[in-house]
């Protein structure tokens, strides 16, 4: 209903009834809008915000040691971390372990400590199985028993691990995800050189994503431009060709690339038959294969926003520039390309952010040196069952992505537009 018809149906302008009626109407409209978006908001809350919150929580949660070893945690809180803890602490630990009423608590404790000190798993489980000691033993006797059971109880590193984890919340997982760790004295230091890995993997993840984005832009831009200049019917037919791979299962496409790119595959055999190469090229199970397949999979995400932006750019501008004496190439880059910047930004960001989370394609087409961060997140979730570290790596990836988006907004100075 337009404002004119609205006014006709209502009392005279400026009257109080009118103001009230307008306010009422405005309220109702507002309510309707909220009601319409409510399902989506609830959906987003439960499928996106709650899981992300749980993920962030799990990255700093550290319940295992506090839960299983309340007395030992207490005893270690005042420990100066020099040498070994006093005999009373040994006794507290033995009491804690003997009092666990569920074996799974011991297992969880062993797993938690083993992520900090390899070997803690067998130490904890071995001791747990040997307990309880005879009742009424003095603290010194308990300590001697434990040392006799496993001499590793005489090594401070296991005690440091317990002390470092005897609080409900911990920065340890996040530190590990940044290649840092807690030192023996509780301070923060860099991880050992052969355990520093996530920084490089994050760098590799961004590097692969950037290369994929650039290739998608280089391949997608001319195609989108050509499509935008065609009459609608032909453009639609060709657009279907762009979209068909988009609708095909990602695993099918990965398998197809294996068939094409393997050393006796179609590509290599064709190149050898043409005499271009004498030896088959290594196109698979390395960076090349990963990038080829990822560019193929992500190309539609570049073409679609570009196409929709280009459709809206009047062809007359380019013609006007040329008719005013600009060389065609200069006109293209100085008149046409700047008008498609929102499409480049949207497509680039979309492809880049999707690339960062890639897992299946590098896992199946890449070598050990081509795996991206998601591969390790999956490894820690499924194989090592170290969910704290998996969540911390996820949090790092999330923060890095948000930071990049922030940088994008500052540079492009525009809201993300999908055309």
């Amino acid at each position, binding site marked *: 209903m337009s404002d004119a018809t609205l006014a006709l149906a209502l009392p005279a302008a400026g009257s109080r009834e009118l103001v009230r009626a307008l306010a009422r109407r405005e309220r109702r409209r507002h309510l309707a809008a909220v009601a319409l978006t409510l399902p989506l908001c609830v959906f987003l809350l439960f499928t996106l915000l709650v899981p992300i919150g749980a993920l962030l929580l799990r990255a700093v949660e550290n319940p295992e040691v506090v839960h299983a070893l309340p007395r030992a945690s207490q005893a270690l809180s005042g420990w100066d971390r020099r040498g070994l803890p006093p005999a009373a602490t040994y006794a507290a630990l033995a009491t804690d372990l003997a009092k666990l009423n569920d074996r799974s608590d011991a*297992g969880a404790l062993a797993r938690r400590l083993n992520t900090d000190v390899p070997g*803690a798993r067998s130490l904890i*489980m071995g001791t747990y199985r040997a307990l309880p000691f005879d009742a009424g033993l003095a603290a010194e006797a308990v300590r001697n028993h434990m040392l006799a059971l496993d001499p590793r109880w005489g090594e401070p590193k296991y005690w440091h691990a317990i002390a470092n984890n005897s609080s409900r919340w911990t920065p340890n997982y996040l530190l590990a995800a940044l290649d840092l760790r807690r030192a023996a004295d509780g301070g923060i230091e860099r991880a050992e050189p052969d355990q520093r890995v996530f920084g490089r993997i994050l760098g590799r993840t961004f590097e692969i994503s950037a290369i994929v984005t650039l290739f998608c832009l280089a391949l997608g831009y001319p195609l989108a431009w050509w499509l935008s200049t065609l009459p609608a019917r032909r453009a639609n037919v060709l657009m279907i060709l762009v979209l068909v791979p988009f609708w095909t*299962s990602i695993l099918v496409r990965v398998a197809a690339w294996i068939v094409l790119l393997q050393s006796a595959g179609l590509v290599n055999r064709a190149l050898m038959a043409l005499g271009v190469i004498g030896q088959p090229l290594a196109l698979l*199970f390395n960076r090349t294969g990963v990038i080829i397949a990822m560019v193929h999979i992500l190309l539609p995400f570049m073409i679609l926003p570009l196409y929709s932006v280009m459709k809206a750019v009047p062809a007359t501008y380019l013609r006007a520039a040329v008719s005013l004496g600009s060389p065609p190439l200069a006109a293209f880059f100085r008149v046409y390309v700047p008008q498609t910047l929102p499409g480049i930004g949207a497509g680039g960001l979309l492809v880049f952010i999707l690339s960062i989370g890639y897992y299946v394609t590098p896992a199946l087409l890449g*070598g050990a*040196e081509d795996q991206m961060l998601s591969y390790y997140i999956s490894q820690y979730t*499924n194989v090592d*069952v170290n969910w704290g570290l998996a969540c911390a790596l996820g949090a790092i990836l999330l923060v890095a992505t948000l930071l990049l988006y922030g940088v994008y907004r500052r540079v492009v100075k525009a809201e993300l537009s999908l055309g």
Partner: protein
Amino acid sequence: MKTSTPLLAIVAALALPVAAQTQLTVVNFGGANAAAQKKAYVEPFEKSGAAKIVSVEYNGEQAKIKAMVEAKKVVWDVVEVESPDINRGCDEGLFEKLDWSKVGSKADFQPAAVHECGIGTFVWSTVMAYNGDKLKQGPATWADFWNVKKFPGKRGMRKGARYNLEFALMADGVKPQDVYKVLATKAGADRAFRKLSQLRPNIQWWEAGAQPPQFLVAGDVVMTTAFNGRIDAAQREGRNLKISWTGGIYDLDYWVIPAGAPNKELSERFIAFASTPDAQAEYARNISYGPTNTKALAKLTPKIISQLPTSPSNAKTALRMDNKFWADQGEVLEKRFASWAAQ
């Protein structure tokens, strides 16, 4: 393979309430192993009228069992797990304690198959394999596997530290029985990674067990590490793939019942059935994984026995996977491997 798992799990979860009494969800690793289990265990068990079996595939992710047990929504009844997972899962209370009186006599089984939370179901091995059409004389030792002058070309190896570090030490002259002793020291781990670095330009990494035979057939690699059953499956399809058993690493897979699984009694009956000599012998006829029930061997022909990892000649220089070692050191060595791969 990966996408089918959640889908099947959903199908299994949906199908369960319809006929909860007579349906059993059995989870295994898929592929040739699943086909052999279907013939030897699933079909005869169904024919006996005991239950309808829903087969589900997974990739060994203990996280899935952990999530089910923690949420108290267990939809899997019987699960095949690898040995590191049975120890870890048993410690963490993810599995029911196995009542051996319901499944068989401990004396009939190999000692390694007897576990408080499960029963070993077959012995498999990670070995070196090559294409007999391409190599007349295959590699005989791990030192040969590392010898790129004598055998030029790429080698397939599993992405990760497990197995590869052991193989590297054996290639460097460490005796199979000393491998884990050496690997447990810092100097030994350094030595293994150094040896792996030598071969690195020639390594083509694989992720899934189905890849190595495919690499060999396609000619992408000249030799590869592989699970022996996968090579066996390719041989049955008529491929001339060959195995060198020297210094293979063998391990067991186990049947377990997740804690709180709905049909415990029926699950025990299935496990008991799948552990009988007859059923295990039938399984070994369909895939060359070794039976754990020692009475099953008498039912097999010498030709089939010669293909099993447990046959005396194949097991002579074999190494048993040390799961206690990997339970303690696995995470730190895998991380070191990732760091090594990033250099």
